[in-house]
């Protein structure tokens, strides 16, 4: 009955049913099937382990949501923005004498016999609210072919399939019609998100008093957020702000609008979070398989190359040239920029985030303001998720940086600082003028400082705050040393030439993206000899300058490590350590 793979794509529910029947037939007790798979997941996993099959599964985007049929298999890529808790549902029930299951569907067509607990085991599933990765740059968006084959070429077969499907799920047709009407494809959210600082600032200030739909800045009702229902997965696997690719059944059933009047429990307050996501706006996805995505998964044409040293070195040189061109031929700054782009939080030892490397470029003036713009542009071309935050008094006073729990809607309202791991954030302080901060502003400044120092964002749960670890690369642009945001290193820039950027070849860009994404993930180690040298150098440094504190020393070691990574190597060599020290010396010279 399971038949060809085709079936699985167009009628996955059929597969669910048939495997369920098969499981029952082999004598499984339906009441004992809770939290365990009866073979469906394996079926899909086998199918989708083949890349070519996976790419046949259409990707849910605002563009494709029009023509993807409900009750078919779809993919969705997004960041877990909120967790809506668990949902209890009747897992299986007896329709006459036949057992049926409700797993992977929202509702059932058969009436469920009420009130007999032995025949209606209750199972649970988790609800996740996923949004497109904040700050996703256009180049990292899935290209047309990756989105999955449009329905055109298989409509005929599809129709046949659907006839069969209709028999089994009578509500199929109306649902589809509704779907098309309900989600007209409007502008995509990221268009407005990062193009210019100005639009960013507008987008980033959600009208808090507004409707419950303005949950995400710049996100309106028909952007491609999605409620994912996850089955049988340990809690620790799915974390807030992680980026996942979910494969599952798309459902949307406007019929099932919450009717709050009838239930006493929701009388008091809108307790059901789903109520705020009408099904015709936010599709539901019943997930079979989920996979955590890394930055690498957002590269378009993945060159499958081993990071060979000489190759890496070539790319590194060209990237450095590019960066220094962007920075007005400032090579020192370009080096720091490179190290900065490679940094990530390696480990957390108590409050310390080891490995972070935030940079503050100073000495921006009117003449060099264009550098800031170019830098922003360059970073956007290199890193998949980027943000730019124009720091002004007004922005600080009005923006909602930290995510905040709204108990009226029982939703976590996102903030600018709810970012996916590996995001890049430019804080442009050059526009900052003297002014008065109100309490929001003070709080926001504190939040930014926390992110900078600890790589942690406090989420506001009204009665308490909860710290969430993040991993964000922070770059501060300012005239003088930024005191609001104490970055790890301060690099005064010395642009020497007026900048004339030549266009960058697409291949070069791709190579750089690949380089940044790959090299960043490399493991690293330390040989004991180098360790000795580093230690003695640190001791010498302390003794030369008593004002050095632990952070300064730690930063130096981080730089050494990043330096060696930038060459694609995994062990710190003395040569690279010397380069690091030289770089640090050059920087210090500029400071004085």
């Amino acid at each position, binding site marked *: 009955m399971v038949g060809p793979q085709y079936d699985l794509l167009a009628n996955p529910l059929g597969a669910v049913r048939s495997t369920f029947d098969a499981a029952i037939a082999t004598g499984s007790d339906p009441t004992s099937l*809770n939290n365990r798979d009866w073979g469906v997941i394996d079926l899909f996993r086998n199918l989708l382990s083949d890349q070519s099959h996976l790419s046949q599964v259409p990707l849910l985007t605002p563009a494709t949501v029009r023509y993807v049929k409900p009750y078919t298999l779809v993919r969705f890529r997004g960041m877990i923005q909120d967790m809506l*808790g*668990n*949902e209890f*549902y*009747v897992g299986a029930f007896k329709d006459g004498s036949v057992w049926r299951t*409700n797993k992977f569907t*929202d509702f*059932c067509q058969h*009436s*469920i016999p*009420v*009130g*007999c*607990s*032995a025949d209606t085991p*209750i199972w*649970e599933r988790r609800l996740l609210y996923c949004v497109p990765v904040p700050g996703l740059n256009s180049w990292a968006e899935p290209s047309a072919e990756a989105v999955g084959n449009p329905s055109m070429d298989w409509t005929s077969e599809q129709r046949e399939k659907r006839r069969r499907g209709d028999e089994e799920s009578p509500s199929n047709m109306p649902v589809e019609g509704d779907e098309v009407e309900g989600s007209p494809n409007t502008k995509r959210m990221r268009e407005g998100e990062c193009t210019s600082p100005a639009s960013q600032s507008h987008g980033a200030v959600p009208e808090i008093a507004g409707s419950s739909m303005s949950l995400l800045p710049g996100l309106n009702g028909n952007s491609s957020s999605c409620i994912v229902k996850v089955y049988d997965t340990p*809690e*620790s696997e799915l974390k*807030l*702000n*992680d980026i996942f690719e979910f494969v599952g059944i798309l459902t949307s059933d406007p*019929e099932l609008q919450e009717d709050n009047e*009838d*239930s*006493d*429990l*929701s*009388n*008091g307050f809108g*307790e059901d979070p789903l109520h705020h996501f009408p099904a015709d706006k936010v599709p539901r996805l019943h997930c079979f398989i989920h996979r955590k995505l890394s930055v690498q998964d957002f590269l378009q044409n993945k060159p499958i190359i081993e990071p060979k040293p000489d190759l890496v070195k070539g790319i590194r040189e060209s990237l450095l040239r590019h960066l220094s061109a962007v920075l007005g031929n400032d090579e020192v700054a370009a080096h720091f920029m490179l190290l900065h782009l490679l940094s990530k939080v390696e*480990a957390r*030892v*108590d*409050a310390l985030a*080891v*490995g972070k490397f935030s940079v503050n470029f100073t000495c921006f003036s009117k003449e060099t303001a264009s550098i800031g713009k170019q830098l922003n542009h360059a970073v956007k071309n290199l890193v998949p998720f980027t943000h730019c935050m124009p720091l002004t008094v007004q922005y600080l006073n009005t923006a909602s940086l930290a995510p905040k729990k709204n108990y009226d809607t029982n939703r*976590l309202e996102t903030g600018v600082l709810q970012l996916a791991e590996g995001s890049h954030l430019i804080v442009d302080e050059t526009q900052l003028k003297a002014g008065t901060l109100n309490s929001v502003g003070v709080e926001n400044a504190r939040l930014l400082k926390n992110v900078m120092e600890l790589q942690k964002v406090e989420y506001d749960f*009204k*009665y308490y705050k*909860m710290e*969430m670890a993040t991993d964000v690369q922070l770059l501060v642009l300012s005239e003088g040393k930024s005191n609001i945001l104490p970055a790890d290193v301060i690099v005064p820039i010395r642009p020497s030439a007026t900048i004339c950027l030549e266009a960058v070849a697409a291949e070069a860009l791709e190579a750089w993206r690949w380089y940044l994404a790959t090299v960043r993930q490399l493991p*690293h180690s*330390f040989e004991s000899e180098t*360790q000795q040298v*580093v*230690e*003695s150098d*640190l*001791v010498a440094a*302390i*003794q030369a300058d008593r004002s050095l*504190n*632990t952070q300064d*020393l*730690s930063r130096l*070691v*981080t730089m050494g*490590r990043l330096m060696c990574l930038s060459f694609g190597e995994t062990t710190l060599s003395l040569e690279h350590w010397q380069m690091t020290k030289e770089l640090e010396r050059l920087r210090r010279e500029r400071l004085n």
Partner: protein
Amino acid sequence: MASDSTPSGFQQVVRPSSPDNSNSSPIANTYSSPGRRRRRQSITPSGTPQPNRSRFASSDATPTPSRHRRGGGIPSGRRGPATPTSTSEDFPMSSEGGDGYDMDDAGPTYVWGTNISVEDVNDAIQRFLKHFREKSASQGGDDDLDMDLDIEGKYEKLIKQVIELEGESIDVDARDVFDHDHELYSKMVRYPLEVLAIFDMVLMNMVTRMNPMFEKHVQTRIFNLKSSTSMRNLNPSDIERMVSMKGMIIRCSSIIPEIREAIFRCLVCGFCSDPVPVERGRIAEPTVCLREECQSRNSMTLVHNRCKFSDKQIVRLQETPDEIPEGGTPHTVSLLLHDKLVDTGKPGDRVEVTGIYRAMSVRVGPTQRTVKSLFKTYIDCLHIKKTSKSRMLVEDAMEVDNGQGRNPEEVLFDEEKVAKLKELSKQPDIYERLTKSLAPNIWELDDVKKGLLCQLFGGNALKLASGASFRGDINILLVGDPGTSKSQLLQYIHKLSPRGIYTSGRGSSAVGLTAYVAKDPETGETVLESGALVLSDRGICCIDEFDKMSDNARSMLHEVMEQQTVSIAKAGIIASLNARTSVLACANPSGSRYNPRLSVIDNIHLPPTLLSRFDLIYLMLDKADEQTDRRLAKHIVSLHYKDYENIEQDVLDISTLTDYVSYARKHIHPQLSDEAADELITGYVKIRGRGKFSGSSKKVITATPRQIESLLRLSEALARIRFSESVEKHDVVEAFRLLEVAMQQSAMDTRTGTIDMDLITTGVSASERMRRESLIQDTRNMIMEKMQIGGRSMRLLEILEELKNQSPGSEIHLNDLRSAVATLASEGFVSMAGDSVKRT
């Protein structure tokens, strides 16, 4: 009502199946009977499965008459699944199988779908209520009957109290149930609806027996289950079970009046119907007037003010932050509160809730019978207890008068944990390990950490019969250069300590620290608002930037740090509040960096009076020392290369540490052994002795009685660290060492290199004082020599020159000279006008 006390008597009460035959007793119209009678109604002949039974809408506020109508064999408790109705406390309708009651010859009746025999449970509960003694080992049996004469059972006493106070509920400690009868406990947890119904029945029976005139309905409220669930772990298998969990209230709905019984009146003839009870969540409105003469159709209208309503409230409970795993968001759950429980908590309260986990299916539309496959879950609340906020137990034993009046609800460590902690304490290097586990990311500073550890454990407080009391709290001051991780240490201790409060000196005012009187904006009454120190009673108050605090605020600390109270006298309120706080303060030296040439007092700029109240004063100086530098470098490098995992291996995690500390504080009260006492005395004498230099008249005080107290506290804390009940000699030795390490750093006289307590107590070292005196003497001599009475005046600078000429070796500052001359002037020896000095 049968006042017979035997089980059989009880059965008689239940037996009559005709409602009318019920109690013709005076209580026929009381509140108590309806509940019971209704319960009987619920006992239906049908054994139909009812997964969604609600607990019956209850009870207390319902008058009897209408009760007589039986819902045609349908248990009134069986509701449409979508009605979460149900009032609080009881009456699961569903102990069906009740047929048995109707038949005299009934064998054991079972609750449907279970192996619970109603009679067995009934008897078990009765036994429990009657015979439970808090400490009694014997249960059941006839012996207890004798004991009854002597001691009253805990619950019998409670019942009496309830009768006297006309209360409405009895709190039953589930642990008591467990201690008394394991089986009953597990049945209760597994089938709470059924067992609680029987519980209520038995209870009412007893109440009526004790006081037949008692009218109210008394409900059972179970609390303190043996195991509490985390909200995260609630899963379908918990449905219909009794659960208890901790959480924080985040939202309360307004109070919802829920109709219990409706009365209808005919618009045509004015006939009033009998009260119509709620059935399946709805009221069957009569379509036809019931009066035979009238019988008009659709004429009945609801009479609002004659209907019975009960209070209902929906509350949302959210997980407390410490239960949320990394990368998760807090879970929430709805609570349904009824009657008395309504408004017991407000948003922000941390509570422990005991209740029944229920699921309710969601209907598609208000009028449709079809249900979604989804369920909404909630907890039907039985009991709510507010809990404290701190990590460590608040009720800890730093206080003297423990033993009596111990809070029975205090959280107990389970045996397994205790065994683990005890085993830990037996390790020979436990002191070192704990030291290492304290702020493991802060490098070095072992002695400071040891001091802080002692502060966490604390000494024993002592209250003499005369009323004098000695504090057990240890106060510590950290003074040091910037960047020596003082604040980090403070933050760490704050996280760890019971009721830790963290303030920054710059932002604290005197009232913010102690207490202040405010006018309540609503009532206009003056109320006392506690400040940080009062709030951290029995905890540690961490004050950062101590030096930047205003003098006014600091002066408030004097009382707190020795007397451990805060006294307030203003606006008609004179009060003394307890502030048994350990103070952990840190300060920067006045010149931002410590100047080793100046004394501690000059460096810290704190009044000596306050300084002397700190048991330990640590100077955390950034010394140039290659050894430490190298270790630091190694540490940093290892941070980056994942060696830290190895380093941390023998370190206790923070929760174990907290458990360890709170257990020790609570259960260990070390006494000074004779040997240790001797050591203390000889040690003290020795330190005092150090102040006397042979052949010198100068007297340096190296220790004061305050130090003995400090030493005692420290050695007690050290014994506590080992979970030892007696303070041994080596504890005292270590305490001396700690004190000395701290003193050498802080009370060292930089001129002589000896310890000088005068530095702390008066701010001037003994050698300094002697130097000043000799300067005065010199000046006096010089003036006697050079100047005549009434002669020409001399400028200060000239005198300075002269003095320097006389004794070329000594260094004299103008300021010292000025004060010396001022002293002479006050003696009347010279007169001073501006800079010129004249002999008089």
